[in-house]
């Protein structure tokens, strides 16, 4: 179960701030007084981790990076009892024999060099851990442990104890084992192409320099053919395959003219070498494939740590506590049956739809429905999956299976069935299609022009046209331009799934906003106090009281009176769903839920009310006003319409839609698309998952990019929300760049074709012209998008 942590990036460690921040995690210590070795800590959890590390000679952790630790505040100690279940264990581990077990954990909390150091020194904490290795970018740790000394549960508990709870969820259970094996085919392909390119050029030197030595020319020709064979059949395999699939579906994608060029290059070269009529164009062939693969590699440099494919399975836990025959046992979610009674504790997730059997339910559906307040349920009420229980233990009798629940059913919609191929660029394919017709036309025109005069020359010119017109520059333009753009955007904390997203972004004409968590800051609701003025002593008393409660409103009142001291509280009482009361500093304070907000009574007298207001993200109005003239803007909220009046200043009243279910949102987008709109969806939670998937571009706003985000095309850090208009303008600029690059490629092609149609294309001209055009296109794309990025930042 992913656990949201407030602070993962250490705060800045300026000199004077240091005394007030926790020595472990760098959070503000507030009024808390926990000291050890003259070092301050914000909570007992941080202190404990410090003690453990110190006792085990691991204090180095704090010296590699200042305040490297992870705040343990609000972190629930999860009970990993289900990790002793053989079936679950066997699915999680990579390898096991009599002595050792190997396992891979995803540790979302990994964020700095200290993390790597600590996790790779785990053996000092527990001698059962034999070996541990971290992959920082993937945020994974590979552990080997001794079966005799520890088990999986103990290992996970150890990691959780020092602040790195592994993310284990329903998805892990269903992942196939083979997916874990890393695919290194691409590296081999690139290596072979590079090797062949260099060596074929070397072997072609005599040819370039005109050092004609008939015997050697013959043998070098054979060698070239031998070296070029694996390039064609192994390195260039993907292009040939893609072209073949495209042709079978009568779809002329960009790989068709490329494959045509590759095959003609190889065929003609092989013919020349075998008949001793020439040296062939093997150098151009190897160079072409090498450049194409480099482009692919440049484009593929994605951000491992972000997953864009997550569905509810990554959000749901792996097991639930089920009461069978009066005994509590943990059962994996896919083995839960209708009629099972599930025990759900504080902060746990409801795995499937059911009916409340026992206990006080206050369920936070904010992630599922967008409703910002927790919902109260009484015994006999229906409870929907995906909500998080925020009060005490409840028991729920299931009425649906996990995959058939109200929320999870969304994933059965058609929108989730469509598979998109990540590398196929629609723009390139569109161009590729016209290009193919154009080349074929010229090639055949040349063929038929020369045929009556000279058969040999006709074939020569025909193949030369196919070779020189091979749209490698077109194929390279998108990977390099967009690949660089993705990288620049990632530096600004805007992470795109692949280069296709840039094209799609440039076409968007309709933008849909979700409310809760997207345009409002879910973590920050403003609280206001209205009523009689309070004395300092009263404020101290109020803060001391709310300190005792974990309720979100209490936490906010606590923050509101943050600068006041904390004193002892007597007779503290928290009535779930109603409020808190107690004595502090001689005042009897009652803070209760009220129709309009939260009421405050001191010694029985009504003093005032605290009202909560959603806090809109900074820059929202500017963002909307910059978009209003260019896009159609809508707001789809799962919440009620109490903030309609406020939102009408930014949106047209008819474009505001409230109380939208996840399915409503999806259907709303489908309707817009049916009208021919290109829709951009901005969302954040599971309730937007369907809409994000259905939309042309789905962008998730994430407070913390390490936490769960539903499947989408792009993730933007909430801090960069106000920059979104710049990002989209940047994407549009890059698409224009690609069109310019195509123009350049076209000019090169005209030059090349003018040689080719006359039958004058010698291997040397091809060997110069093809890399030259590729290099200029690549340089143009990379420098151009870099310049756009600098210009965009200055604006």
């Amino acid at each position, binding site marked *: 179960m992913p656990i949201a942590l407030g602070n993962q990036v250490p705060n800045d*460690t300026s000199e004077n701030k240091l005394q007030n921040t926790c020595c472990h995690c760098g959070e503000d210590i507030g009024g808390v007084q926990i000291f050890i070795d003259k070092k301050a800590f914000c909570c007992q959890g941080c202190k404990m981790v410090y003690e453990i590390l110190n006792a085990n000679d691991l204090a*180095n952790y704090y*010296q590699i990076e200042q305040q490297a630790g992870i705040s343990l505040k609000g972190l629930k100690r999860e009970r990993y009892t289900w990790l002793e279940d053989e079936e679950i264990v066997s699915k999680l581990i990579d390898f096991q024999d009599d002595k050792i077990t190997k396992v891979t954990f995803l540790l979302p909390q990994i964020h700095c060099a200290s993390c*790597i150091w600590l996790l790779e020194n785990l053996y000092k904490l527990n001698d059962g851990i034999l070996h541990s290795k971290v992959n*920082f970018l993937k945020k994974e740790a590979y552990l080997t442990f001794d079966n005799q000394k520890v088990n999986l549960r103990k290992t996970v508990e150890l990691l959780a104890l020092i602040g790195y709870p592994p993310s284990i969820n329903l998805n892990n259970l269903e992942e196939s084992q083979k997916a874990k094996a890393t695919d*290194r085919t691409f590296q081999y392909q690139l290596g072979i192409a590079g090797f062949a390119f260099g060596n074929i050029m070397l*072997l072609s030197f*005599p040819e370039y320099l005109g050092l004609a030595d008939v015997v050697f020319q013959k043998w070098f020709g054979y060698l070239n053919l031998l070296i070029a064979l694996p390039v064609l059949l192994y390195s260039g395999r993907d292009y040939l395959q893609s072209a073949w699939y495209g042709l079978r579906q009568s779809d002329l994608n960009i790989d068709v003219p490329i494959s045509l060029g590759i095959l003609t290059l190889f065929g003609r070269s092989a013919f020349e070498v075998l008949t001793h009529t020439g040296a062939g164009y093997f150098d151009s062939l190897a160079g072409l494939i090498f450049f194409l693969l480099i482009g692919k590699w440049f484009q593929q440099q994605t951000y491992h740590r972000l997953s864009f494919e997550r569905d509810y399975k990554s959000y749901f836990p792996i097991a639930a506590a089920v009461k069978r025959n009066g005994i509590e046992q943990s059962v994996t979610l896919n083995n839960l049956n209708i009629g099972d009674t599930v025990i759900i504790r504080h902060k746990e997730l409801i795995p499937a739809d059911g009916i409340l059997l026992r206990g006080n339910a206050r369920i936070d559906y904010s992630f599922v429905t967008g409703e910002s307040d927790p919902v109260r349920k009484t015994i006999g009420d229906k409870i929907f999956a995906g909500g998080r229980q925020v009060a005490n233990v409840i028991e729920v009798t299931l009425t649906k299976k996990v995959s058939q629940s109200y929320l999870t059913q969304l994933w059965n919609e058609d929108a989730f069935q469509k598979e998109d191929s990540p590398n196929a660029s629609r723009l390139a394919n569109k161009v590729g299609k016209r290009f193919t017709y154009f080349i074929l036309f010229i090639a055949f025109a040349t063929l038929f022009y020369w045929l009556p005069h000279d058969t040999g020359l006709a074939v020569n010119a025909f193949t030369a046209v196919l070779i020189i017109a091979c749209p490698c520059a077109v194929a390279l333009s998108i990977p390099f331009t967009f690949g660089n753009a993705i990288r620049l955007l990632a530096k600004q904390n805007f992470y795109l799934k692949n280069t296709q997203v840039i094209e799609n972004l440039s076409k968007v004409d309709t933008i849909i906003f979700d409310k809760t968590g997207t345009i409002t800051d879910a973590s920050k609701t403003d609280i206001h106090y209205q009523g009689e003025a309070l004395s300092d002593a009263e404020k101290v008393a109020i803060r001391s009281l709310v300190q005792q409660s974990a309720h979100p409103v209490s936490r906010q009142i606590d923050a509101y009176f943050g600068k006041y001291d904390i004193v002892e509280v007597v007779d503290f009482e928290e009535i779930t769903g109603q409020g808190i009361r107690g004595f502090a500093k001689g005042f009897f304070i009652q803070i209760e839920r009220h129709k309009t907000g939260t009421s405050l009574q001191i010694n029985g007298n009504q003093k005032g009310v605290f009202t909560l207001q959603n806090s809109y993200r900074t820059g929202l109005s500017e963002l909307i006003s910059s978009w209003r003239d260019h896009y159609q803007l809508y707001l789809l909220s799962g919440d009620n319409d109490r903030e309609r009046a406020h939102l009408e200043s930014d949106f047209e009243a008819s474009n505001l839609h409230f109380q939208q279910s996840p399915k409503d949102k999806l259907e709303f987008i489908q309707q817009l698309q049916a009208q021919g709109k290109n829709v951009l969806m901005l969302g954040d939670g599971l309730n937007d998952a369907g809409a994000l998937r259905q939309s042309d571009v789905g962008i998730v706003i994430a407070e913390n990019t390490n936490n769960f985000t539903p499947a989408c095309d792009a993730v933007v850090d909430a801090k960069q929300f106000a920059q979104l208009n710049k990002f989209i303008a940047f994407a549009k600029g890059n698409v224009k760049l690609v069109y310019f690059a195509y123009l350049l490629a076209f000019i090169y092609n005209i030059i090349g074709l003018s040689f080719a149609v006359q039958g004058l294309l010698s291997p040397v001209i091809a060997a110069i012209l093809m890399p030259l055009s590729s290099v200029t296109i690549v340089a143009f794309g990379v420098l151009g998008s870099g310049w756009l990025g600098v210009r965009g930042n200055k604006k």
Partner: protein
Amino acid sequence: MKIIFLLIIVSLFIALGFLAAFFWAVKSGQYDDEYTPSVRMLFDDKPMETPEKKK
């Protein structure tokens, strides 16, 4: 002039050696993680005596 041809053949075999070395490197997983080793090599075996200067 013949010596050029000989040298080219020799260099081809050297290049094959490098290709084999590259394959071995890929196979042993050296390209699976291109970032962590750059951090790992900076760790000392013994805890540092004085904390690093703050930025």
